[in-house]
């Protein structure tokens, strides 16, 4: 996360780290139910074999295992069938864990939005992750507040790419707070009236985050995929 700050342990209990040896942390991910995690499809490029992955929950400092940490192996990886590597569209994947996590105050699922629920531009939300900070890769989870940007305005930053309704843009025009490499798959969450947090985006792509020319971050629009997410959990749980 560029321009963010170190998070307090337990502040984002749905945040998880998708890891694969020998490199360890590869991508962020989000807990949505005891046995299910959301992330983005591009994290699995070249590594679609579930056996090489594990997911770590309840951790703040990747370098210091905590008593609240829970680690699970991956049973199933389901990439969206329309995921397009060339234009990074339909960038979403759902992962089934080998067994349930146990819910603690440090490991909690996030709420999902209603199908098609949209965010108004200028809404403020949070992004979190262990991705690049601009000058180094952090061990401690970083968080940053970003403002939702309209798709039209976002398109004006990316001439060579098409911003689709499967995407959400967030960040500041000046590009101070942004997601970066290693944050992919992590959450863009917004607080709802009543204090519950809802997952609206998954960090997907953007401009080269530590170059001079910055633009907003682009996130997979989770509310577009609610029907698909529910279907995959149902099929994997009841029909296979």
């Amino acid at each position, binding site marked *: 996360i560029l321009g963010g700050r170190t998070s307090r342990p*337990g502040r984002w209990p749905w945040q998880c780290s998708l890891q694969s040896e020998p490199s360890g942390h590869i991508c962020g991910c989000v807990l949505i139910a005891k046995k299910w995690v959301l992330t983005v499809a591009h994290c699995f490029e070249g590594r679609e074999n579930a056996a090489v992955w594990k997911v770590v929950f309840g951790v703040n400092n990747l370098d210091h295992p905590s008593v609240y940490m829970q680690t699970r192996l991956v049973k199933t990886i389901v990439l969206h069938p329309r995921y397009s590597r060339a234009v990074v569209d339909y960038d979403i994947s759902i992962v089934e864990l080998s067994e349930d996590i146990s819910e603690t105050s440090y490991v*909690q*699922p*996030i709420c999902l939005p209603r199908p098609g629920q949209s965010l108004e531009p200028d809404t403020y939300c949070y992004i979190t992750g262990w991705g690049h900070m601009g000058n180094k890769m952090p061990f401690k989870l970083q968080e940053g507040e970003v403002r939702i940007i309209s798709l039209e305005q976002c*398109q004006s930053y990316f*001439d*060579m790419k098409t911003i689709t309704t499967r995407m959400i843009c967030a960040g500041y025009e000046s590009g101070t707070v942004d997601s970066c490499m290693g944050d992919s798959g992590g959450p863009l969450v917004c607080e709802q009236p009543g204090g519950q947090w809802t997952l609206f985006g998954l960090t997907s792509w953007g401009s080269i985050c530590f*170059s001079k020319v910055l633009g907003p971050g682009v996130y997979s629009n989770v509310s577009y995929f609610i029907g698909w997410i529910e279907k995959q959990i149902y099929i994997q*749980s*009841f029909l296979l």
Partner: protein
Amino acid sequence: CLYSSCLDSCGDSSLCDPDNGLSNCSQCEPITLELCMNLPYNHTKYPNYLGHRTQKEASISWESSLFPALVPTNCYKYLMFFACTILVPKCDVTTSQRIPPCRALCEHSKERCESVLGIVGLQWPEDTDCSQFPEENLDNKTCLMPDEEVEECSPSHFKCHSGGCVLAFRRCDGQADCDDDSDEENCGCKERDLWECPSNKQCLKHTVICDGFPDCPDNMDEKNCSFCQDDELECANHECVSRDLWCDGEVDCSDSSDEWDCVTLSKTVDSSSLLSVHRSATEHYVCADGWQETLSQLACWQMGLGEPSVTESIPEEEEIQQWLRLRSNWENVSGTTVHKLLVPGQSCPSRNKISLLCTKEDCGRRPAARMNKR
């Protein structure tokens, strides 16, 4: 080489010399970088002149965005050609030699376009130093110069009728970018060989029509995709299966969609919610005889909800024709759904139907910040 990467280790050294038994080590590869698919050559070799080791690396590089964005400024007619000669250098398939651009092509591009970059505070890419490229030598073609065959625009551009290129996504975006506004002509879907959503005139590629994923607001792109018989129902992927097989607990559509959304809760006037099953696409109530709490749990989970909080038996006043009842040995049916345990065509002695309330799993809660004495 077949068994290892031939990149640096091979180069021109004898390591991959066919005489030592290694099978062919042609380092030429077909060009896949979309930006450069309309060149007068179609094989390339890595690393390229920008230090990228693969076409994938080149495709996500800064330069692959920078040069196409410069083209519409018309700073140099062959800028895109030059960009491609360094992004995907020509590879001579007979000698596996990399053919560089000529120094003059590099110098012309830099002289005419560097200043445009300067206007927006950007620099010409450092490692495109023109002195590294050979002078043009007319009698043996050791470097590349544009000829009349060379396209001014890349496949990622639209060629204006008046000349010059604009980025493809600018076509039909409602704003004229070509001098002659030609990028805003013939913008109907049909003219662009696209399919039009009736409801919002959105244009879609033909590949996404009838592919099981709705794209039009009214899902029209997924209508009229198959012609099932009267006694058949259409799967999400547009196959046809017999109506009798719909929600029978066995997957019959290849995408399993005949077993989706089979169990729901339907609200009644007195606000209880009746468990209903869409067997053969017809709503059935579930007979309460023999019902157990574990089945309520399974039903709630199947609907993506939390634990059941209330299970009730509601007397049925009307004469119902179609009950679903628990099959006799339902406890022995493994790995299942609720509707797989139910069979049609039987009476319900108690004439009671199941009403269910499921909790909603809690989510999105953060632990309150702990209070620490300082």
